[in-house]
């Protein structure tokens, strides 16, 4: 039986090898022009990686989840910005729809939101206690619920979307003979595009005068690591109207062999993630104590006050990480004490702190181990104790809960 299986697998590999296409011409590879013509779209998708994880390639997996999952996250590049208040209201209420009173598919500033989606958003908000929710439907529509109001946000179909609860961001890669560049767009939750700049926006602020300033990393300007221990990824504060650019303190660094370092600040607490080529990271607090114990994990999210971390592997680590692929753990970020752990029957797709509750996003079992592809339900826990509270069924993919 085993021999027959082995023979069939070998035959399978042979068929794949035979189906391999012809290589690109070396000159095209060298110049980067292989991405042009009919390959440009596919390559652009390939190059969306860094944008997708809001980091360069495998630059510390925790950043992406942190940015999409944290409420009022602060980074150490805030000096050029106005103080954080987290309540900036730049929406246009007249273009939005109030969920509880809608009886038909309403029209928002950017299109209709199906009643079933509105109902699902409301169910999630109720079940998780969230007042701000950004999600994506199975059809790819990005929708937001804020204080009972539902909106639709138009973005490109082929881009990773993330949100900080006030804005929605997406980044597209462009490739030409000069190399790879990134272009980011930020929109309000009601779909108004307020900023479009080169690089990857990881933070956007609105000044008192109504203008916007984006904190933006420029991977294309980082250069080669070479023999250096590490090099910073250039970070800029960019005025979204004038595009005036001011260098600010970096928040991430690249090292050789695809290793990286990134600093995240949450409510005054500072966490430094040392990432490897596999996308896993060891995260330490201000006292250089690991906040993920001896567990080597790919993604970390923090409670709003920074006192608690939850982490796990998203099931895409090539080192296997069997202890964390389907296991989520939470620790005290000061003492390192293990607070709780949850074992799922499948790899999970996302995790979020929402006040005193913790939410895990689970895909259908048939799509695991590709957990991002869909959502089946949210598991809601008491954040301090890990006690299971309830299950919320939904097909919406969560982008932000807060």
């Amino acid at each position, binding site marked *: 039986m085993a021999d027959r*299986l082995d023979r*069939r*697998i*070998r035959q*399978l*590999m042979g068929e*794949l*090898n035979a*189906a*391999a*296409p*012809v*290589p*690109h011409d*070396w000159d*095209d*590879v*060298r110049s*980067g022009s*292989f*991405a042009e013509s009919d*390959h440009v779209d*596919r390559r652009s*998708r*390939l*190059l969306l*990686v*860094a944008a*997708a*994880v809001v980091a360069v*390639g*495998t630059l510390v997996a925790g950043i992406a989840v942190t940015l999409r999952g944290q409420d009022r996250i602060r980074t150490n590049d805030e000096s050029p910005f106005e103080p954080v208040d987290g309540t900036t209201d730049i929406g246009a209420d007249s273009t939005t729809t109030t969920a509880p009173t809608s009886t038909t598919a309403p029209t928002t500033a950017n299109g209709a939101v199906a009643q079933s989606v509105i109902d699902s958003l409301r169910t999630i908000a109720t079940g998780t206690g969230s007042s701000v929710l950004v999600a*994506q439907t*199975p059809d*790819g529509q990005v929708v937001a619920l804020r204080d009972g109001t539902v909106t639709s946000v138009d973005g490109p*179909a*082929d*881009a*990773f*979307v993330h949100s900080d609860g006030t804005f929605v961001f997406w980044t597209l890669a462009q490739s030409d003979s000069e*190399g790879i560049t990134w272009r980011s767009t930020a929109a309000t939750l009601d779909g108004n595009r307020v900023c479009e700049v080169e690089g990857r926006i990881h933070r956007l602020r609105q000044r008192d005068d109504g203008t916007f300033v984006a904190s933006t990393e420029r991977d294309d300007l980082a250069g*080669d*690591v*070479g*023999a250096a221990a590490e090099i910073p990824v250039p970070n800029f504060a960019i005025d979204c109207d004038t595009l005036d650019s001011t260098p600010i303190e970096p928040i991430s660094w690249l090292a050789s062999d695809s290793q990286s370092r990134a600093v995240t600040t949450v409510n005054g607490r500072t966490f430094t993630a040392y990432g490897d080529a*596999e*996308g896993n990271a060891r995260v330490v607090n201000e006292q250089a104590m690991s906040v993920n114990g001896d567990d080597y994990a790919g993604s970390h999210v923090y409670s709003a006050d920074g006192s608690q971390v939850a982490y796990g592997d998203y*099931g*895409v*680590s*090539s*080192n*296997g990480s069997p202890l964390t692929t389907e296991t989520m753990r939470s620790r005290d970020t000061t003492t390192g004490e293990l607070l709780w752990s949850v074992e799922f029957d499948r790899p999970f797709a996302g995790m979020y702190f929402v006040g005193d509750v913790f939410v895990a996003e689970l895909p259908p079992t048939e*799509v695991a*181990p*590709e*957990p*991002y*592809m*869909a959502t089946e339900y949210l598991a809601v826990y008491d954040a301090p104790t890990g006690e299971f509270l309830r299950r919320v069924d939904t097909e919406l993919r969560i982008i932000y809960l807060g």
Partner: protein
Amino acid sequence: MTESISIEDAYRKWSRDLLGYATALVGPSDAADLVAEAFSSVLRRGTDHWSAVDEPRRYLFRSVLNVARQNERGSSRRRRRETHWSMPPLQQELIADPEVVRALSALSVQQRAVTFLTYWEDLSPASVAEALHISEGSVKRHLARARNTLREVL
């Protein structure tokens, strides 16, 4: 440094091998781009980095997997129809055997990599581990899971 070869010569010498591998990882439509992007990455790192690489062929296999995994991470956060390795029509035409399509779709990228290197490159678990910079135990786990899946599918 056990083998001295220029990046260009490496491309000419091993791109065909890498294309078979990349096809196993992501399918034929994106395989050429995957290999080209891996080499682009090598070029961006510079000749000093390349000249310091031990076992350049294995290094390139690892680079191709890294690009594929990066693609997977990006893909995984896009829309469902774009994230799933769902074999669009072009790929179905390129791979005539539907059983192959079904089998590959059931494996993760890592499992595809380990399976290809084991069954096509004839590498031992230790050599696969060395090539991919992962533990031998991880290789065995990936391979066991892949075989279990393929036993059901094939």
